């Protein structure tokens, strides 16, 4: 393995914050560290980039301990992108990027034509060529992050360490930045280690995930292994709300109480209605949903009363009975306009049942809220 830590303990002034950290990353791979705020993600990153003294354990690059390398040697093999706000006076973006050549230039920092070519190449990689002569202070957050990334690329490292590179960025810039990181890993064969807040993005970008909680690494492995809804809930001590690992979506706290609205849904028609009801904190029941239906994913996050049926099979009579029982409990019946087909004719049956039972039939939530029902 290219970069490896073994039984590493990190912390401040001798006090251990996280212990027994053992992981490794190969070149061309991306490792993300996730965990709640204040868990020590930054402390780990600072220690493995030698900004902080380790407490115990080893960190090696190609079997060389990073604590034995000279400053310059380490700077040639490892570069960082930090969360510190950079505010240099009268510097153009190009000059900031060129600073990455520091370990390679002579004692007066003179740039050779080769250095300049490397700076240009780095700017091209982060798609910021046009920013070269722009003063750094005139750039937006998104541009700044890309410039600081170009600076880190200029250092021509084999391993790059990034502390929350996506914070402060809007969704477009987040995606762009992660895409650049992926191409650095594949094209330049860099090993990349970063901390990320967005667990949905972490699952998609990373080859390897480690989760920090309390004073230990709670879980690690490939994203598919690590990310289960229950694990995410316990990692972040989430009390309400859920993280859907299949869709990567975050759902807010489910409404409490006895459901008095039954939603007839399916094929994605239910989701906007569920969300509306959640905003008004109105408990609802819904069904019958096939388990491969996208509505099912969201409904089960937002309601306890969901009648579901195995996909690719006709709905058993028992499930219809359950649904009818829920309709009996409810006062209102929302028909979301599910597209009817050969296998969901039961929808008509349920609608007719609601009518028979004298339930108020509505077609969207607006009616429900506007009449203060």
């Amino acid at each position, binding site marked *: 393995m290219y970069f490896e830590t073994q039984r590493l303990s990190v912390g401040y002034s001798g006090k251990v914050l996280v212990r027994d950290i053992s992981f490794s990353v190969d070149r061309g791979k991306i490792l993300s560290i996730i965990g709640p705020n204040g868990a020590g993600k930054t402390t780990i990153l600072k220690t493995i980039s030698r*900004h902080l003294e380790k407490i115990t354990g080893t960190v090696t690059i190609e079997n060389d301990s990073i604590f034995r390398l000279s400053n310059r040697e380490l700077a040639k093999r490892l570069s960082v992108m930090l969360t510190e706000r950079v*505010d240099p006076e009268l510097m153009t973006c190009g000059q900031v990027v060129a600073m990455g050549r520091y370990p390679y230039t002579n004692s007066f920092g003179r740039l050779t034509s080769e250095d300049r070519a490397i700076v240009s190449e780095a700017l091209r990689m982060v798609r910021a060529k046009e920013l070269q002569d722009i003063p750094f202070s005139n750039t937006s957050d998104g541009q700044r992050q890309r410039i600081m990334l170009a600076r880190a690329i200029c250092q021509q490292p084999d391993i790059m360490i990034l502390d929350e590179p996506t914070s402060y960025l809007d969704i477009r810039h987040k995606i762009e930045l992660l895409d650049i990181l992926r191409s650095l890993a594949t094209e330049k064969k860099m090993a990349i280690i970063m901390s990320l807040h967005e667990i949905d993005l972490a699952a998609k970008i990373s080859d390897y995930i480690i989760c920090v909680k309390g004073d230990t690494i709670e879980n690690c492995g490939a994203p598919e292994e690590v990310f289960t809804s229950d694990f995410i809930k316990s990692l972040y001590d989430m009390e309400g709300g859920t993280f859907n690992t299949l869709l990567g979506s975050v759902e807010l706290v489910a409404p409490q109480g006895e459901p008095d609205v039954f939603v007839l849904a399916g094929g994605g028609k239910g989701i906007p209605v569920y969300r509306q009801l959640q905003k008004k904190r109105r408990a609802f029941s819904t069904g019958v949903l096939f388990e491969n239906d996208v509505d099912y994913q969201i409904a089960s996050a937002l309601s306890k009363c969901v009648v579901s049926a195995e996909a690719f099979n006709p709905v058993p009579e028992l499930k219809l009975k359950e649904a009818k029982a829920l309709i009996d409990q409810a006062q209102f019946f929302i028909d979301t306009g599910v597209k009817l087909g050969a296998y969901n004719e039961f929808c008509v049956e349920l609608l007719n049942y609601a009518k028979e039972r004298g339930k108020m039939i509505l077609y969207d939530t607006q009616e429900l809220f506007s009449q203060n029902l």
Partner: protein
Amino acid sequence: MNKNKIIRYQLVYIVLLFLIALALVLNVNTGSVRLSPAKIFKIIFMGFEEGSVESNIIWKIRLPRSLTAALLGGALSVSGFLLQTFFRNPIAGPFVLGISSGAKLFVAVAIIFIAGSFSGITPYLMVLFAFLGSLITLGFVLLFSQKTKNMSVLLVIGIMIGYICSAITDFMITFARDNHIASLTFWSMGSFSGASWGTLGVISVVVAAGLFCSILISKPMDAYQLGEGYAKSMGINIKLFRLILVTLTSLLSATVTAFAGPISFVGIAVPHISKMLMKSSKPIVIIPASFLCGSVFCMFCDLLARTVFAPTELAIGTVTAFFGAPVVISLMVRQRKNRQ
């Protein structure tokens, strides 16, 4: 782009050198005794009329004084630039942070309690005491700066330390023996009037060494502008670098204080003017430019101090404040704007 920059650098250097020459001529030429430029030229370069009053005025008073103003002005500006790099704050400077006042206090102690008189102390001893004073006050400022990340608080602390040092100095001067008071009072207000060839020798040695070392650390200074974290990640030994920076800045500002007393605003205003002229903050360009610019600034300020209300001489700080304070105010306003 790059070519334009180099032309700009060269142009600014040439203009500054020309201004230094001009200031030197004006300084030597102007005063209560008027001399024609031709005569000055003859006296300086051809040893004309050796021993005459004119020759003495030029050789013993005006020439050393102008050169002292040039060297100390340059040293003060470079010291300010180093401090601004250190604190990453454009308003840091030896005077604002109380370092000049600390040096002043120590020199006053040396004069009153050790040497017994202003003339009884050797120039090297003066520098040594001023250096100690600078280091100790800067040490205090650093101690507080670790407790607060807020730059405004740091500046206020520096100003307060400066006031404390000045108060103690004034207190000692008040109770010093009569024969010290006149020279001490004037020196403690800041003036180049004490210049002589003897002190000039010491000044050139110390200032040249300080300037040379500052240029040697211009590469890490450049990287330090990106912040400590990044500087460290590029391979800079931060502790060593900070130590060198503190030592150099103390040495340079101590030299100034030892020989000319505390001079305000030069340390902040001149590096800023140099950066504006060069449109760059690259230390390797700005250190020499600050030095030259500081020389010009102080020589002209000294000229004004001597001549505006002649024969009464103004304290040099009065003149530098007059031109420097507006620059500092504009800096403060701009910094606020950037933060918002």
